């Protein structure tokens, strides 16, 4: 027996780590890819050609010879072209929240869209059943169909709403310099000021929490508070952040600053600061918490947080980015081309054309705000 036989056996039979789990995780993704593609036509080319010739002959004869020919001709001329909605290319697994000049919209995976309100900013509730939006001095909660659930009116304009990530018991928002919190059912008696030194940055709830909230202070620091007790859990100094995002399990907090990304642990200790090759314009933390997508100038970069390695994902004037819940796709709003782009595994790009028109061109290009949860 040569050495090749036992080698073959051992290479084929050695149990490998993660093999079964990997198969279980990958099958739904592969199955979804099949569902996304249109099936190939069943009939052979010859059959198709014969059918096409016969159909054309029939139409021609009917139009030329029959008294009803004119009617048939009119039918063909008047039939409206059937087009798929611009958003029909979205994959299954959650709805996208988009904001344009005419308000906020929920885009469903089937491509249908629903206007939620004239919101300038909005955020999903933890399971994607509701949206908290701001409209001037009003904080509004609507369901995914746009039905208003409650409204809270303040004295001055409000902004930066963030629904808590646990059971959805609280909504944080900013009113001027005040960080405020109200119960998720909109009960006005629960509406209160938590802090009076908030910078205009959307606060970030710790994952799966209705209590722990991180916000940016006017002094440029980060502060994490317990909204029930009002106690400050920790503060961290640093230059003013623009975006705050907690990683899964609350193990990491990522703060996007103008030209850098700071990674902190769950207690506010800075782990690393990664310089960016330009001014950051948008940021989306990957669901794994290990990497992020950042718009820097006219480039979209993938950033690995462990070592700061970046790679270019896309070049173009991108306005708004969001990861799918499974982390396999990145949605980009490419305003220059009036398209949304889906960057999939292997760098595959799917374009959704004519998105402004789909939501009413008067509102302008719809900004990708968030992509929420499969239900």
């Amino acid at each position, binding site marked *: 027996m040569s050495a090749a036989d036992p*080698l073959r056996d051992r290479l*084929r039979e050695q149990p490998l*780590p993660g*093999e079964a789990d990997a198969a*279980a995780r990958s*099958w739904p993704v592969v199955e979804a890819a099949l569902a996304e593609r249109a099936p190939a036509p069943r009939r052979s080319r010859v059959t198709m050609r014969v059918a096409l010739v016969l159909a054309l002959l029939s139409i021609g004869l009917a139009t030329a010879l029959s008294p009803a020919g004119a009617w048939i001709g009119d039918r063909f001329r008047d039939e409206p072209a059937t087009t798929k909605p611009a958003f029909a290319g979205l994959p299954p697994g959650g709805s996208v929240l988009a904001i344009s000049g005419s308000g906020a919209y929920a885009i469903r995976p089937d491509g249908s869209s629903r206007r939620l309100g004239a919101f300038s900013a909005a955020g999903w509730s933890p399971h994607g059943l509701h949206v908290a939006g701001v409209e001037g001095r009003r904080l509004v909660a609507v369901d995914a169909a746009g039905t208003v659930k409650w409204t809270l009116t303040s004295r001055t304009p409000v902004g930066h709403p963030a629904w808590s990530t646990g059971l959805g018991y609280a909504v944080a928002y900013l009113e001027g310099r005040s960080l405020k919190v109200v119960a998720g059912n909109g009960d006005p008696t629960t509406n209160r000021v938590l802090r009076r030194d908030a910078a205009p940055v959307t606060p970030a709830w710790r994952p799966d929490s209705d209590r722990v909230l991180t916000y940016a202070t006017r002094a440029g620091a980060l502060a994490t508070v317990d909204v029930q007790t009002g106690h400050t859990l920790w503060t961290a100094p640093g230059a003013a952040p623009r975006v705050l995002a907690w990683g899964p399990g609350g193990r990491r907090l990522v703060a996007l600053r103008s030209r850098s990304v700071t990674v902190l642990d769950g207690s506010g200790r800075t782990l690393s600061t990664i310089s960016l090759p330009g001014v950051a314009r948008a940021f989306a933390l990957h669901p794994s918490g290990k990497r992020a997508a950042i718009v820097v100038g006219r480039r979209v970069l993938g950033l690995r947080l462990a070592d700061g390695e970046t790679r270019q994902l896309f070049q173009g004037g991108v306005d708004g980015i969001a990861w799918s819940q499974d982390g396999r796709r990145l949605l980009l709003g490419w305003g220059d081309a009036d398209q949304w782009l889906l960057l999939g595994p292997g760098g595959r790009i799917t374009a959704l054309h004519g998105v402004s028109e789909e939501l009413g061109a008067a509102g302008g290009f719809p900004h990708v705000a968030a992509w929420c949860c499969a239900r």
Partner: protein
Amino acid sequence: MSGDSPAAFVPAASRPGLLARAEPASRRQERRLVRDVQRGSAAALEELFRREWPRAYRAAYLVVHDAAAAEDIAQEAFLAAVRSIDRFDRRRPFGPWMHRIVVNRAIDVTRARALRREVDAAAANSAEAPPDQPSSPLPDDVVTALGELSPEHRAVVVLRFVCDYTPGEIARALDMPRGTVNSRLRRALDRLGEVIER
């Protein structure tokens, strides 16, 4: 289909013959499955996935020696296959086409990692973030010894002994002279044979 439990996809790589090269009857069945997938059949795709996943994952793992990367590579290969299935010529065997994608991608990933390790080593003193936990090493000596070969050597071994390619087919798949394939196989066998005989 979607309701299947994950356990339904537990591969049984150690079953005799599972990784053996497709026989003629099996080839006919494979052609039927590919045709049905081209028509949009999820059941046919599921069957094809069950048949090919174990070898795709194994081939990727044995080249990259990392479970997460192997999963990505095998999954990307399946996604690429699904997306281009309409253009697939059914007269050609599906498995080798898939393995070629897997192994070439695995070589690319391994090379890129090697390059990154050089950069990381240079920047190690300034790095503050802890690196990701490495995959735990396998207890099997042959697999560990395989990891000590270059990615190109590993790919040749995997295509020969896991995917059952002939040296000529390996040469075409990896775009290298047949003599190089033979010499790499010989060297790999010498090295791995020492481990087996221990």
